[in-house]
């Protein structure tokens, strides 16, 4: 009895029976109860669409729940706006940062603090420097946000909520935008914050991360809390099982049996945004029925290479030959028509038009040709049945084909893009970080799809910052560093140490 009461004294945040149904009928939180202890790192683990982000938005006052109660230090509270949350010393680092790019670090942080009418930026800058120093961070308060890398922007967010004296810190998928090195730094920072008595909620869909840093792990699935565990009493497999709710599909063993070269890239040179040489004489080929992986730390020319291949960036010299056709510096339209499909990393900005419907997005690359349209008139029936067909085949979860794509979860948007790209009878597929931001199940489905395509004789170029993904799928692995291909390894002959060394530029 005494035990339980001291336990309850330690609860800094407690939500009871939270329910939230969105206007479009999605039940995001279905009776969620959860508690956070003082000084713990508590992970909430679940797939995309499990309701984690909704729960966080409710706790931070961005949306109001339909029913349920929230207690902070044992007191019932109403959190109706972000300001209420800040006053209760709840701070959140959103997945999408709440920073204004054209303003400086100090101005952005000032915005989240109670301010006098006459703005004392010098004082705020001093506070930023002090806090940054206390957790061993370096940050220039006068830098504009738009000049900072994603990792640095995240630090600004952390310093911001510390400036607000937050005691409860919530990180919403903090690692999804970071490089492995930045993740390491972030985690040591989170541990540092814990040692200073802060209570931390970490929202993630990455099992390994949750296991490595948490004191407790709560699993969410389809809007409900499934279980709360400590890392010592569980393991990766059990967590993955709890998250997905059924057995994970195992990966198919397979034989490499590539055909003719489809895409031949020779001596490609491409400039980056700042006119620097981003791709420096890259040559490779892709055969039908194989997956060629390009491994490398992000920012070594992969993005520019992909943009050159898809016609989005000018090629300075070299050539891109596809089935005997020269595609060098051709328009994206020409390249698409030739039979090259593309799954972009930035789904929302490059992959779909969020405000158009699922059906419209599915015919984005073929809308102007029969049978979808004839002499400018679109055939709604054919488009609808085509869309329904793809929705069924690819298992896109959507109420109907007429709903705007922005309402779909990331995994379903990705399925939609894959469905569209493959319905075009392409011979080569360029997949750029295709599993970024996807949960375990969606990633598994995606990998299965890529593998099936390979069996059907399609040549796939897989660019990924996730080495596990590259190694799992590729027949051949090319390693890119500093704009060059610095190594090529066969699937059956992979030496992890060598790959890691090549990626980091060692010879």
């Amino acid at each position, binding site marked *: 009895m005494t035990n339980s009461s001291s336990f309850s004294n330690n609860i800094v945040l407690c939500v009871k029976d939270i329910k939230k149904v969105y206007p479009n009928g999605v039940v995001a939180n279905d009776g969620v109860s959860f508690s956070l202890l003082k000084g713990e790192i508590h992970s909430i683990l679940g797939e995309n669409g499990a309701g984690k982000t909704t729960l966080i938005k409710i706790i931070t006052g961005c949306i109001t729940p339909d029913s349920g109660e929230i207690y902070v230090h044992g007191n019932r509270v109403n959190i109706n706006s972000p300001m209420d949350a800040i006053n209760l010393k709840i701070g959140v680092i959103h997945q999408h940062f*709440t920073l*204004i790019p054209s303003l400086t670090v100090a101005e952005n942080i000032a915005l989240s603090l109670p301010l006098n009418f006459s703005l004392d930026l010098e004082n705020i800058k001093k506070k930023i420097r002090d806090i940054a120093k206390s957790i061993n961070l370096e940050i220039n308060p006068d830098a504009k946000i738009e000049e900072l890398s994603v990792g640095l922007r995240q630090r600004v967010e952390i310093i911001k909520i510390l400036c607000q004296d937050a005691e409860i810190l919530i990180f919403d998928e903090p690692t999804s935008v970071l490089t492995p090195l930045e993740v390491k730094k972030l985690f040591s920072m989170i541990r540092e914050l814990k040692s200073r008595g802060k209570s931390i909620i970490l929202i993630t869909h990455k099992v390994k991360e949750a296991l490595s840093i948490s004191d407790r792990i709560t699993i969410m699935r389809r809007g409900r809390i499934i279980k709360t565990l400590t890392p010592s009493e569980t393991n990766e497999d059990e967590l993955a099982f709890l998250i997905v709710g059924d057995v994970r599909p195992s990966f198919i063993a397979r034989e490499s049996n590539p055909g003719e070269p489809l895409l031949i890239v020779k001596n490609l040179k491409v400039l980056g945004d700042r006119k620097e040489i981003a791709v420096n004489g890259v040559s490779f080929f892709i055969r039908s029925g194989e997956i060629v992986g390009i491994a490398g730390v992000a920012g070594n020319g992969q993005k520019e290479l992909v943009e050159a291949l898809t016609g989005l960036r000018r090629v300075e010299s070299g050539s891109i030959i596809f089935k005997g056709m020269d595609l060098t510096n051709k328009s994206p339209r020409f390249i698409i028509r030739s039979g090259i499909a593309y799954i972009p990393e930035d789904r929302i900005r490059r992959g779909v038009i969020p405000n158009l419907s699922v059906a419209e997005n599915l015919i984005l690359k073929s809308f102007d040709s029969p049978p979808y349209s004839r002499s400018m008139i679109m055939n709604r029936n054919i488009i609808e049945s085509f869309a329904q067909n793809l929705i069924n085949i690819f298992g896109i979860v959507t109420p109907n084909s007429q709903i705007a794509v922005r309402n779909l979860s990331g995994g379903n948007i990705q399925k939609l893009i894959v469905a569209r790209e493959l319905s075009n009878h392409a011979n080569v597929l360029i997949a750029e970080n295709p599993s970024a931001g996807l949960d375990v199940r969606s990633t598994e489905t995606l990998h299965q799809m890529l593998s099936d395509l390979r069996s059907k004789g399609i040549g796939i170029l897989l660019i990924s910052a996730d080495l596990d993904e590259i190694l799992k799928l590729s027949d051949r692995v090319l390693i890119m560093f500093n704009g060059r291909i610095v190594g090529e390894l066969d699937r059956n002959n992979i030496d992890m140490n060598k790959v890691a060394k090549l990626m980091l530029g060692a010879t």
Partner: protein
Amino acid sequence: MIELIIGLLATTMATSTVLILASIGETIVERGGLLNLSIEGTMLIGAFLGFLGAYFTGNLWLGLLMAIIGGIITTLIFGLLVVKLNLNQVISGLAINLLTYGLCLYFFRYTFSQGAMPYLKELIYPLPIPFLSQIPIIGPILFNQTIFVYIALISAPFIYYLLFRTSFGLKLRAIGEDPSIAYRLGINVNKIRYMALILEGILVGMAGGMLCLSMFNVFDVRITGAKGFIAISIVILGRWNPIGALGGAIIFGFTEALSLWVGTLIIGPLSASMSQLLSTLPYSVAIIALLIGGRRAKGPAGLGSPFLKE
């Protein structure tokens, strides 16, 4: 010759003032992400109520007060449409322009049915500043002007300070860049936008009042002469900065003063049509200035886009 130039520049200050007040007012709300095209109608209401107030009370200062109140009411109606009801900003602005034009026309004819053109017996005259107005050249240009000119000149650095050195300005600029981020930061987006609109209403209403109370002593629905729209282009030209707006407005005021001055020099049978052609000069300058100066101008990222809470 020197006296002519001094006269021209002194007229420039007077003709610029309407544009300075209006463009600075518009700069404030555009910094907050609102594109208020109803500034023309706001100015017209200011002129109309200013005229009515002064005509019926016989007191020019009560007229000015009415002009300011009219300006605030009009911008708040715009606020009601776009902030509270989240309607399209462009359409709301244009609708208010049409509405105010119709209302002013109707009530002017209703109030002064037939008969002689009503006019004010007095105008707000220049208020020479002791000592300063005696300085050669600068004195007559800057310090022998009406109170409107002084207010316009002071408002530029004052609003600059407000936008860039106060927490209000910081919040407003953040809203203008991205209202939903500002909201998530705990900023009361609507309240700040209403405050900006009230400031604009004061400045634009005053600009309208100046037309009837200090420049012309009569009212006509065409009195604003698209000055509100010129003010909108000045905002772009001044890069959403009150000091820039001040400079831009003076350039336009100068072309207007120039066309007035050249117009008086032309005599002969064609003088009437020539001076009408000359009066289009400020509008041509607006297009040319935007071509040159407005090309790379980058406004607040969220300008004109609606803000919906989740």
